[in-house]
Each structure stands twice: as C-alpha cells, then as structure tokens.
C-alpha cells in the first residue's frame, strides 16, 4: 500500500503476478446473493441488484439473483422479486435444509452454484449473514474477496471489478482488484447503494439446482431464534431525518442539544465514532464505516469534522447541513449548507428557527398544535455523564 499520496487521484496500478488461468475465461455474468432471514428479504439485496444491473449492463452480460431457501413458495417469490428489481434470471436451490441460515449448507450451495454456472462477479450484502457466507465461499474457491465496499465499478480495459472501500482506519479510500482469480467477490454495506425502482412486469427464468445434502451431514443446528425488540433500538439506517453530533460537542452533557433538535424534527440521533467510543451515546447510533450507513432526506452534522470513515456512512444523504467552527473542516466539502460557528450556540438557535418555521407552516395548513423547541429531560438518560 502506498504511503505517500502526492496525487489525490492516482492512476490504477495493476501489477499482474503471473497469468490468469485460461479456464476462468468462461466465467461470465454478475450474481447477487439474495439474502433473507425468517422469511423476510434483506433490503441490501435490492440495493445490490440495482448496482449489479449497472455492472452487468456495462459488461454486456446477464444479472442473476441467487436464492438459497426452503422448498416452498417463499423461495420462488424471492426469485420473482429479484427479477422485478433487475435480475435477468435466478439460480435457486430450494431445500428445507436451507430454511434458516447456517454456514455449512449455505457455503456448499453457493460454492456448487459458482462451480457449475461460473459467474465473473459475485456480490453479497455486508451483513452478519453475507460476511459469514462470503468469507467461507471465497476461501473454498481460493478467490479474492473485498469486504464492505462503498464503491463498485468496472474497468473496461480488462473487464475487472474495481472495489473501493475506506482504509487506514477510515482516513483514506483504496481500490482493490482481483486480477487472476474468478469469480471476483465483494460484500457491500447496506444503504450504500440506492434501491432501484421495481418493475413488476419484469420476469425471467429460474434455474434450479439440487443441494445434495442430508440433515445428518450438517453439524450445527439452529435451536432458537430470538427476534430483536425493534422499539428498543434506534432505526438509523432507514431514518429520513437525522441530527448527528461529533467530537466538537466537547462533552457528553452538550449532546443533549443534538437530542433536542432531533426531537423537534422527529429525527433520529446519530453520532460519529469518537462520540460512541467515548461512551457519550450508545454504539448503535454510530454513523460511518464501522457504524451504520444512512441515506436520510436531511442530515444535520454538528461538530463533526467529516473524516472519510464518517463520510462513507452518510454521503447518500439528500441534503446535508454542517455546523462546525473550523472553516477548513472536510465536512464542508460534501455538505449542501454550512453554518460556521460554535455548535453549542448554533444548535439551540437552529432548534428555535425550525420550531418557529414549523409552527408557522402548520398554522398555514390550519391544523396541529404548534411545537415548541423540544428540550426533553427524559432523553437525558441516553447521555452517560
């Protein structure tokens, strides 16, 4: 890895070590692993179908969904959905042994499909399931895998996949290529890519394949599943409005100002890595490479400098407002609006400005009780002093 970067956008360096085995020339097509848990499709698969469609179009090949699931209508329904979201066809292994995610049968299933139908690219979500499976399949196939990508492109010069992700603890980006092995595998973070518009008229063929396994060959058994109580957890990833605070909030008590503005806007509260590491707020609220990736309509960042590792978690926001007392803070390079000044003064002022504007709008609309700037003491317990 290069240490010095004189050029902010250096050319690609692809030092080929040896040659690609000619057998890989037959590997064609882009695959997206369609993830489900407890009968529900994971949205990251739809996001990847959107991205996979672009890659397949660029390469002039088919996009396939890969569904591993029980032998019932739900698996075929996942195939149909994958087609609506852009797949040309689906590979399906429908076997009741695949009802719950387990590493061993899923690894065999995906590995067998790859060896039989030979795709050039395989994409999975960077979820606990996708990362578990991708690492196992890539090692079985002895091919390269790039984790947690935030960018996927094709280099038309040699049709290779360029996978970009943060590096050096999230201070810089790197682009990784897999020169000599196929398929090229990558996992991508949920919410990094947009969900494409579905087309219910789209359909395609389903290629079925047997699992070829018995339950007694599978060592690990799922004895229980304890669903999360979603009300207990912040739902950052899918929030439309987020107010986030960073190290610039100076101390835990000040974070209340972030919660207050979030309350007025009905927003979720986010935080940068130093804040969650310091324990000011729960780790579930972290936005960034090692936290959640978000795509809200409005993202307000207070006292966040905008390190790469935070940026990759929020640059999908529609509109970003940055509050910072440093005019050179990188966050201003990728925000729409900037407020230069002290977050501790600007946040209450912004809270008041939003509250009065929202009250006026509601009066115009002739309904609802005008909100006052929220300062809810009940939220205080979120902040460990």
């Amino acid at each position, binding site marked *: 890895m290069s240490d010095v970067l004189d050029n902010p956008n250096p050319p690609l360096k692809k030092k080929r070590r040896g040659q690609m085995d000619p057998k890989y020339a037959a590997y064609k097509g882009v695959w997206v692993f369609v993830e489900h848990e407890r009968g529900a499709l994971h949205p990251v698969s739809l996001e990847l179908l959107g991205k996979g469609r672009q890659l397949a179009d660029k390469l002039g090949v088919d996009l396939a969904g890969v569904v591993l699931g029980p032998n019932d209508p739900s698996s075929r329904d996942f195939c149909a959905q994958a087609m609506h979201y852009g797949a040309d066809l689906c590979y399906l292994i429908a076997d009741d042994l695949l009802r719950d995610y387990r590493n061993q049968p899923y690894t065999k299933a995906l590995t067998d499909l790859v060896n039989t139908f030979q795709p050039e690219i395989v994409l999975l979500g960077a979820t606990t399931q996708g990362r578990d499976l991708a690492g196992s399949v890539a090692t079985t196939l002895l091919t390269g895998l790039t*984790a947690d990508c935030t960018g996927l492109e094709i280099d038309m010069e040699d049709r290779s996949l360029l996978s970009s992700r943060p590096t050096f603890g999230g201070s810089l980006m790197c682009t990784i290529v*897999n020169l000599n092995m196929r398929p090229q595998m990558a996992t991508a973070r949920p919410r990094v890519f947009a969900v494409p518009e579905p087309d219910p008229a789209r359909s395609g063929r389903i290629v079925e394949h047997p699992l070829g396994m018995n339950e007694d060959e599978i060592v690990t058994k799922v004895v229980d599943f304890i669903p999360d109580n979603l009300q207990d957890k912040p739902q950052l990833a899918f929030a439309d409005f987020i107010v986030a605070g960073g190290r610039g909030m100076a101390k835990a008590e000040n974070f209340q100002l972030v919660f207050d503005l979030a309350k007025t806007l*009905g927003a979720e509260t986010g935080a940068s890595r130093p804040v969650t590491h310091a324990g000011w707020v729960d780790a579930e609220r972290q936005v960034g490479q090692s936290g959640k990736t978000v795509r809200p309509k409005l993202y307000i960042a207070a006292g966040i400098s905008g390190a790469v590792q935070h940026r990759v978690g929020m640059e999908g926001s529609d509109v970003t407002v940055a509050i910072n007392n440093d005019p050179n803070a990188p966050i201003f*390079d990728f925000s729409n609006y900037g407020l230069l000044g*002290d977050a501790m003064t600007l946040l209450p002022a912004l809270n008041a400005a939003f509250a009065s504007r929202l009250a006026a709008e509601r009066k115009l609309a002739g309904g609802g009780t005008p909100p006052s700037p929220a300062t809810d003491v009940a939220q205080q317990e979120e902040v460990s002093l």
Partner: protein
Amino acid sequence: MHIVVCIKQVPDSAQIRVHPVTNTIMRQGVPAIINPFDLFALEEALRLKDKYGARVTVMSMGPAQAEEAMKKALSFGANDAILVSDKIFAGADTLATSYALAAAIRKLDETRPVDIVFTGKQTIDGDTAQVGPGLAIRLNAQLLTYVSKIRGIDAATREIVVERRAEGGVQVLASKMPCVVTMLEGSNEMRFATMPDMFRAARFDVQHWNRDAAGIEDIKQVGLKGSPTVVAKVFAPSPKAVKAEMIPGETPAAQCTALVDRLFAEHPKLAADLLKHLDSLNHSPEAAR
C-alpha cells in the same frame, strides 16, 4: 480443552491522521495495540480456562514487533504464545493469512489437539471479518461468527451452544467442537492483568515460528504470492463538485433562520416530507410521551 486465540497487532486507528495538505498518512507516534475486537475473544477464552481448566494459546501472524502484543495477551493469563513470523508472509491478504495461520494451528494440533479457535469479529485496520471464516474452511471446523454469548460446552459430547448475532435477532446454535468462534464486541469485559501474570509475561519466551516451523509447504499460498487481491490505488475521496454554501448572519439566530428559510425555499419536497413526517408522529401513540 485446548483453545487457540488468534490476535493481531494493529495501529491504533483512532490515532491515525492524514496530513491535510499532502494527504500523507502520519504514522509517527501511532501506538500499536492488540486489535480491540480480539480482546473479547481472549477474555472469552480465559473464562473457559477458569471454568473448564482449558489451556489457552495465543497466536498471531505478524512481524517480530508483534511480540509485544503476545506478551500483553500473556499478562492477561494466556498459557502460551506463538508468533508466526516470516518475511515470506509479508503483503498477505486475508486468504493468504488464513492459509498461514491454519497451517500453524494444524501444526500445534499435532502435539496438543485444538478444540476451539477464537478470534475477534474483525480487525480495526482491515475491517474485513474474513480471516475467521477462512480459518474454519481451511481447518474443516464449524464456523460460529458474531457470537455474543457462549451458553455452555459439554466436554463429553463435544457440544457447544452459542448465541449468534443475526439480521433482526439472535440465533441460538448448537454445534460441535472443533469450531472457530468470532466474538462480537461488548460480549464481555477484559479482566485486569495480575501482578504474577505480568511478571510471567515479561520473562516469557514467546515462540517464533517461521514457515518451516509452521509446517507451510506451499509458499505460493502465503504472502503477496498467495494473495488474489491487489490494492490498485489509495486515494483521498474527492470533494463534491459544489462545496457547502456557508450561510452568513449577524447573530446565530439570524444565521439559523436564514438557513431554515433557504431549506424550505430550495427544497420544497424536503419541507413537505418533514411536515408530513411530524404529522405522522403526532398521530402515533409515541407522541403522547
């Protein structure tokens, strides 16, 4: 019971800075630490040592300086430490790393059979979470990732029951040893090193295994040669085409009112969505709080 804990020495990424002008990584003075996620693995192994009298061997692949991390692990109470270190391992990606570590674990297994390999869910410098799954495949062991709790181990039947973080809930899995367990963060709290263990660690002769000692036969599978992935470039992300428009104002209040006015005027859809969103919250029982 014999447990191997795979750890990695990493630069404390929270302290890595990029020079604002030259975009150079400023490495000077960045301390090397045990990957924080690996501490949860080590502590869990030490708890099994306390509970079942297990033997705990820490293992790492890295340069000679990583001995410092091994000694740290010993000071917490590990029985033995092996540093798998050879120039030929340099430049390894996760595939080549799991090959070398698996070879060393198999070698260790010849003299003292290994029941569980523990590791952190990922490292803070690579963030890939790939070496754990790679080890399980190469060792033909069961893979249990993102484990938040070990419910119990039955030494006679060799059964292990764990809670695993899945999407939308926790899977309770009953599996068998040998297995590879990657521990979730926050699953336990690292103990303090005791005085006797600190003294023992300081004097401890950490074993250094080169490729021959680790039983590595195929040198084409380690280091740069064994790594299918190549870093093609490292770069600072480019600023968006348009920089943030700075909203001026005589006072913070004026600044903020101007910003809100601009937001509502220039993003009418956003404003409408915000009002709709607040209305929906008002109609929900949540708003009663």
